[in-house]
């Protein structure tokens, strides 16, 4: 595998650190006018999700990690694994619970997710930023109440619980931001 020197480090680059694949978040070049240059690097350990801050001597290098982000369609869950398909090659990949993690509550069949593959296996699943899901449980909607701005909890088809406006009812489709879990609006249908 290739390696990258600290002065090539860029946000998004995937490298191996202490045996784990990491994604570089930030790379700050620190150099006194006279003296050793350093790179202060923020990385996310892709296996644990933890963010690390490490200092390197400038010019040192790290091995590249065999990590690729690929858009894949979510197919189904068989009780143990979540199955995804590369729409170009029809190749299927099974992700375990650890890879799916928090994304589990946003996975809807046929949605396109980003599957991070490490040595060919799913390491992390990232749902689309916006998903449209059906409300399966909530208090009855208050008709015409669009002005008070009040909210109530609603359970969605995936099991996620979000806050929705009082006028929403069971069976309606909502648009949600998966990064914040925020209600964005009523789905306009047709997607």
């Amino acid at each position, binding site marked *: 595998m290739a390696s990258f020197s600290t002065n090539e480090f860029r946000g998004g680059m995937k490298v191996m650190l202490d045996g784990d694949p990491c994604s570089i978040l930030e790379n700050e*070049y620190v150099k006194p006018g006279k003296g*050793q240059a350093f790179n202060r690097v923020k990385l996310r350990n892709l296996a644990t999700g933890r963010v690390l801050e490490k200092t390197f001597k400038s010019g040192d290098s790290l091995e590249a990690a065999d990590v690729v982000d690929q858009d894949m369609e979510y197919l189904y869950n068989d009780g143990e694994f979540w199955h995804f398909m590369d729409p170009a090659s029809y190749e299927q990949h099974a992700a375990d619970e650890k890879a799916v993690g928090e994304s589990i509550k946003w996975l809807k069949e046929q949605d396109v997710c980003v599957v991070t593959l490490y040595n060919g296996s799913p390491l992390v699943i990232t749902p689309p930023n916006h998903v449209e899901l059906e409300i399966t449980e909530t208090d009855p909607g208050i008709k015409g109440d669009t002005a008070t701005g009040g909210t109530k909890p609603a359970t969605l088809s995936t099991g996620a619980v979000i806050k929705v406006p009082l006028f929403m009812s069971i069976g309606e489709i909502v648009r949600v931001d998966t990064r914040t879990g925020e209600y964005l609006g009523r789905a306009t249908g047709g997607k």
Partner: protein
Amino acid sequence: MKTQWQPSADISTLKTRAEFLAKIRQFFHDQNVLEVDTPVLASFTVTDPNIESIAATCNGKTAYLQTSPEFFMKRLLAAGSGDIYYLGKSFRDEEFGAKHNPEFTMLEWYRVGYNDHQLIENTLELIFSLLPEAPVTKLSYKSLFEKHFNVNPHTVSVNKIKMIAQQYCDVQFDSDDVDVWLNLLFTHVIEPAMQGWFVVYDFPESQGALAKKAINEDGDVIAKRFEIYCDGLELGNGYWELTDAKEQRQRFENDVRQRKLHGYRDIHYDENILAALDSGMPECAGIAMGVDRLLMIKTKKLIINDVISFVFE
């Protein structure tokens, strides 16, 4: 290919920059300091293991873009120029970042007969003719290490300073060079804590480069070198200049050895600068300042790209 033709700084910042350069020239004109325009391309360059020169080809031979005008300016001083300043470009390879661009504008000047503390006063006079007057804290390098880490940087063992550095930073390397750890603690812990204007003086002897050696009041051997900081940003590096050619030759030879040891490019030191020192360069103090960074302070910009017309592309 995606193009990005627009300048990296906005036009109003470039107008401020032009006024800034004019004010700097006025300051030195008023103090009878002569502007000199020294070469940026030459056959020789610095030997400092921590500074990489950009090589070019001239007349079929390797030449280097100068990392500072220091050697040419010292040759002028030895030739009897008197007080001089240079305001122009310098180049350093591999220096990229929010506060670094491989091509940058340097202001370097020498005052004949000054010592380091007299030059500090002269530097602050220049700074506050360009920026709003503010209080300045002057501290020795040693006092900063005593305050933050309770160690004497001039006598501390490599194991002790390494242990301290590893408590503060998660480092991915090892080194048996005390200066690497001192530099790490300085840049990662001390600089961020220096809010406001600071002058740091009396650096470790091993970080002296072209500064005179001396003994401080506690008996530590130190280098008569100082640095200026604003909000932790390094703005200038000054020396009470070493005038001893023999001592300078030893330091160059040590640099060359260090370069070999680390596998860096082999650089032959410049005999002309040694000959100039040998001929009797006058006692003087000199400082190099990063003009782009001074302008960052002036315009409250956090990234060097915002104050230079076109960042390296």
